[in-house]
């Protein structure tokens, strides 16, 4: 009985492995095949194997057809900038909420808790309107005040820097730091900024890691917001760049699979190296949330 149960567990685990892995294996293999062979292989075991005329032609095709590296740079720039600025401002507020006494603290705390459950989709359309109206200072020889920030990096960055989940996680983390650290620093005459920068932040490694992952990945994958705000190719992020391929649905499947592979494989490899970190981060959110 026990043996049967044990075997059943392995059978389930292996079956699930196939379920979760087969589309991704297919994607990588298809990216290596010409369209004709790719379609021929569908439905047979061959579609999961690197058989037939294998080449990197489709990858070459992607680079010829769309400015892939430009899109990738745009996404990396937006995601990195948002993550770095977000770590700074969210940890500052988290610190102030966790260890300091100030007026308006309760109001700000209530604001953060209530926005935690608010999906971005609810405010997307009103935010779009706001972005069409907000001024921005642009520089082209002289300084100009322009209205609206569509087709820019800032429209993709500014709304996502301050983040309720990030603030909340930093606050929870700073609350766990021993009070004595901060008190002894106060006695030594350190300013609050010094305590934040020299004591709290250097000890906040795990929170920094968690918040970084929870900002960076969604920013790399963002889609709804850039399709509405970016029409100019030079600011277009990598997920929206795929539009080139699906407006002509059903053409150039090999190139589509190559594009998808280029978007997926680096993240998966990064994940395999930093697995504990990733998984720990997500589990931490669940436990604290």
């Amino acid at each position, binding site marked *: 009985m026990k043996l049967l149960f044990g075997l059943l567990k392995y059978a389930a685990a292996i079956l699930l492995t196939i379920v979760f892995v087969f589309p*991704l294996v297919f994607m990588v293999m298809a990216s290596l095949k010409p369209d004709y062979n790719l379609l021929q292989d569908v439905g047979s075991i061959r579609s999961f194997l690197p058989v037939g005329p294998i080449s990197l032609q489709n990858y070459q095709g992607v680079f010829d057809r769309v400015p892939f590296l430009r899109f990738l740079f745009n996404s990396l720039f937006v995601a990195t900038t948002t993550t770095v600025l977000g770590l700074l401002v969210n940890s500052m507020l988290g610190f102030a909420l966790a260890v300091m006494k100030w007026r308006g603290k309760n109001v700000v705390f209530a604001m953060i808790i209530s*926005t935690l459950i608010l999906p971005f989709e*609810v405010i997307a359309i009103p935010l*779009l309107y*706001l972005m069409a109206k907000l001024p921005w200072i642009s520089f082209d020889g002289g300084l100009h005040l322009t209205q609206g920030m569509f087709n820019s990096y800032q429209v993709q960055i500014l709304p996502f820097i301050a983040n309720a989940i990030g603030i909340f996680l930093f606050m929870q983390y700073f609350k766990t730091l021993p009070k004595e650290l901060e008190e002894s620093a106060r006695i030594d005459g350190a300013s609050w900024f010094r305590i934040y920068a020299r004591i709290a932040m250097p000890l906040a490694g795990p929170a920094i890691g968690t918040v970084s992952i929870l900002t960076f990945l969604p920013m790399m994958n963002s889609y709804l917001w850039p399709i509405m705000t970016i029409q100019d190719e030079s600011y277009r992020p990598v997920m929206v760049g795929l539009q080139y391929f699906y407006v002509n649905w059903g053409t150039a499947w090999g190139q589509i699979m190559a594009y998808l592979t280029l978007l997926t494989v680096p993240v998966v490899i990064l994940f*395999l190296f930093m697995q504990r970190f990733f998984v720990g981060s*997500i589990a931490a959110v669940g436990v604290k949330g």
Partner: protein
Amino acid sequence: MATRMSDARRTLNQSVRIERRSATLLAAPAVLLLTVFTVVPILFALTLGFTNAQLLSPQAPQFVGLTNFSRLLGVGEVTLHAQRDPQGHIVTAPNGDVVYERLNTYTSINSKYPNLRGKEEWFRFGENRQAGTVNVVVAGDPLFWQSLRNTLFFALVVVPVQGGLGLLLALLVNERIRGRNFFRTIYFIPTLTSMVVISMLWGFMYQPSGMFNKVLQHVIPGFQPIDWLNDTRTAMPAIIVLSIWQAVGYHMIIWLGGLQTIPGEIYEAARVDGANKWHEIRYVTLPGLRHTFVFVLITITIAALGLFTQINVLTQGGPLGTTSTLVYQSVLHGYQRQEIGYGSAISFVFFFMVLGIALFQRFITRRIDQ
């Protein structure tokens, strides 16, 4: 002595002042950003729906009262009567369907019924072939109602199925089986890829000549290929399956985090008391997971209500509106048609729906949480 006391008090006051000022400076950037990019849009969502705001119009929006909301939410009912021939018999079409008078009579701009003007058919019910009547529900925006229904249906399926499967996966990879770290990793990988990528990939597999049809043809002799995403019966289920496939690994990890907070001693104590495997799960594991349960419930619900990417990439709300969602409609109106006022009215409804569901779930789960 007295001066020493007041000196001390002054230092104390000063240190309180410094603390307040420092805190304000530390808090300011995030509070400012949250105010501009979250609080102001929420206020917009609550107010722009009452205006005729256009996305790129230079004109200031004008107050239009409840116009947007009456178009969005307005419903009415008409009873249509069958057409009769001169002898008074009910006219039927060659396929046997009863021919009714035109709905247009009631809903045209100059109809006698002001509350039905400009409305479109949403659905029919209660056909009585003998009496020759059928009831038609008309709405100012039937697609909105359909989208609301689709969104709720999606959430009602995805929340329990994804949450439940996530828990089963977590229980499986929490067992002492060889290679459990490997299995955890594999199940988690789809969540790393973006929904756009997953949608394209599954879109290819769902094609009439795609992998699913080919495999089904191998397994079931005489199987007719289904155009999964273009069939009104299968489009939404197809979207649901790919959505769950993508996100279930994420919730597995969250459940796993919850499982690992349950101390091993409780299991040992249960075993000493003679509990079997099922008793363990029922009386130790599940009660120990109640905080995680609340978290999983809320995160999946919020994500499900925001369904958009899959729809935008794969179906554009079709076929016949069967995969249209609230967010898809708000983007269609607010962005593509630039009707910010109307799009915001949808956001307004969406906002209160999310709030209502969140409060309801909070109310239900407060009991569990205690």
